[in-house]
């Protein structure tokens, strides 16, 4: 049982009428593992969550949550969910909202206050949700998702609308949950944001899974070039260009692309022509370009 995945998605396809929102997605989430699901708007992230919840029926493929069918009683006991947009009843207080979910999940009543404290809403517990800021409502949603002892958290864009500090607090709470053995599958739009916060990254594009692995593995597979910009001494840019090639930039510099393992060698050669060069700037591939690389893959496949 120990290493059996909490969530197992096999070759899942989901259709809306004639539109295929997910096609052939396979993904496993192991106990206590944190996975970020990335993808452009309309990539199918929310659709994937709704299929795992059992709201959407697969056109083909299979999903199991703790070995149970999505939507079954066992699956619903095992997982908690935070949708991407929720509007709790404005007239109720945060405490009343949370008490409702504590009741439905049969968790101890004492969790209400301890969870509100954990997400930093203890002060506002007795205030109507209608008076909460967007970030406070998002925190209340997170508190709701932590009710009971979930084995799996499904969080759809949980950090949208949070300021950087709240965001950090949020990932700390997620880390603590993972520390207790809870698996987390969360969606996000930014690779920078999740960089050091999750164990694995999965990238969806146009309903297809383009990548699934650690950030290091994704970077290695993508083999994106390192960009080196060498700025020439006054009047030397022609000489520099004729020696190294590359592309001329703004009259005084050249830009060179190389693979990561060629970087040191190339920089060494640049250093050796000291009098020609005034400055060297090295840009390793950013997370953004990595993300774009995997998202573009799908586009290239779609338009051969």
């Amino acid at each position: 049982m120990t290493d059996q995945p909490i969530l197992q998605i096999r070759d899942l396809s989901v259709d809306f009428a004639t539109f295929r929102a997910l096609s052939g997605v396979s993904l496993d989430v192991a106990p206590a593992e944190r996975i970020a699901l990335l993808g452009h708007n309309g990539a199918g992230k929310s659709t994937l969550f709704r299929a795992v919840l059992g709201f959407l029926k697969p056109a083909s493929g299979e999903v199991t949550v703790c070995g149970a069918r999505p939507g079954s009683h066992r699956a619903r006991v095992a997982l908690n969910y935070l949708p991407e947009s929720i509007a709790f009843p404005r007239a109720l207080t945060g405490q009343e909202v949370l008490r409702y979910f504590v009741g439905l999940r049969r968790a101890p009543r004492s969790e209400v206050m301890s969870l509100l404290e954990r997400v930093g809403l203890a002060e506002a517990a007795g205030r109507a949700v209608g008076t909460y800021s967007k970030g406070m409502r998002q925190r209340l949603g997170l508190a709701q998702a932590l009710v009971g002892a979930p084995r799996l958290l499904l969080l759809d864009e949980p950090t949208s609308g949070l300021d950087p500090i709240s965001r950090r607090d949020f990932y700390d709470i997620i880390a603590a949950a993972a520390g207790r053995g809870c698996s987390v599958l969360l969606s996000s739009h930014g690779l920078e944001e999740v960089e050091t916060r999750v164990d694995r990254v999965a990238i969806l594009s146009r309903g297809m899974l383009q990548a699934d692995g650690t950030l290091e593995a994704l970077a290695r597979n993508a083999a994106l070039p390192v960009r080196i910009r060498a700025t020439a001494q006054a009047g030397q840019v022609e000489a520099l260009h004729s020696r190294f090639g590359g592309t001329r930039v703004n009259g005084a510099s050249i830009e060179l692309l190389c693979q990561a393992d060629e970087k040191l060698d190339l920089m060494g050669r640049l250093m050796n022509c000291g009098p020609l060069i005034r400055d060297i700037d090295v840009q390793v591939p950013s997370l953004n370009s990595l993300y774009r690389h995997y998202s573009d893959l799908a586009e290239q496949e779609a338009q051969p």
Partner: protein
Amino acid sequence: MTRLLIVFAQEMRLATRNLWVLGATGLLALFALALGFLGASQGAQYDVDVLSLTAASLSTLSVYLIPLIALLMSYDALAGEVERGTLALTLATPIRRSELFLGKFLSQTVAVGVAIGFGFGIAGLAVGLVYGAGADGILAWLRLMGASVALGAVFVGLGLMLSAFAGRISTAAVFAIGLWLVLVVLYDLALLGGVIAAGDSVFTRQVFPWLVLANPADAFRIFNLAALDAAPVSGIDGLARTLPFPPAITLAVMLGWGLGALGLGIWRINRIVP
């Protein structure tokens, strides 16, 4: 069972917090008092006490008012939760969908019942204290209150059922108003037109009474008026008084509509994609 109670408690909290119950109570009390005190002068003409007389006129008004209150209360209950995203949250927990539906039904029925109990109760008390009340009058009033709660329950069930089918608040509102117009207003007009056109025919004698009975709002009227022989009535109510069946059947009709609405609503909520 307990999850149903949790839904019930939360919905009650919302209904009272939103001042729904208070508003409905005030409205019902206002109308009942107005009918009681404005109509009191006619009492002498008909040799019945004012309470019976008011019960008769109030039952005619209640046919319009109570379905409206019940539908306004319930139309948003599921469609609104779909739109606001809270239904997805609730349905992600281990609650059974039928429990959610029944929890909402019970709490809104209780809310409508409380409004009727207080609204009509206060008005009845005031009329009784001012004009005096006999046993007949008190009984008629209590019958009216009981039947009103039943009518409210039927329309809460219908409103929830429509809300489950609608999926969006605006659609649900259209459904609710449409249902109210059809069952409460147009149905009677159509029947009256039919009777006038048909004259004394098989339709008027054999078909018409059953068509009247088939509508829950009319069933409510018949139930109330059957016990008020002396009070003046007009239109379809006058015809309804000559119906060839015992008044208790009307209760069975309302029960049938209520159970039908719940059954259909639960069937539908099990198919909602939140």
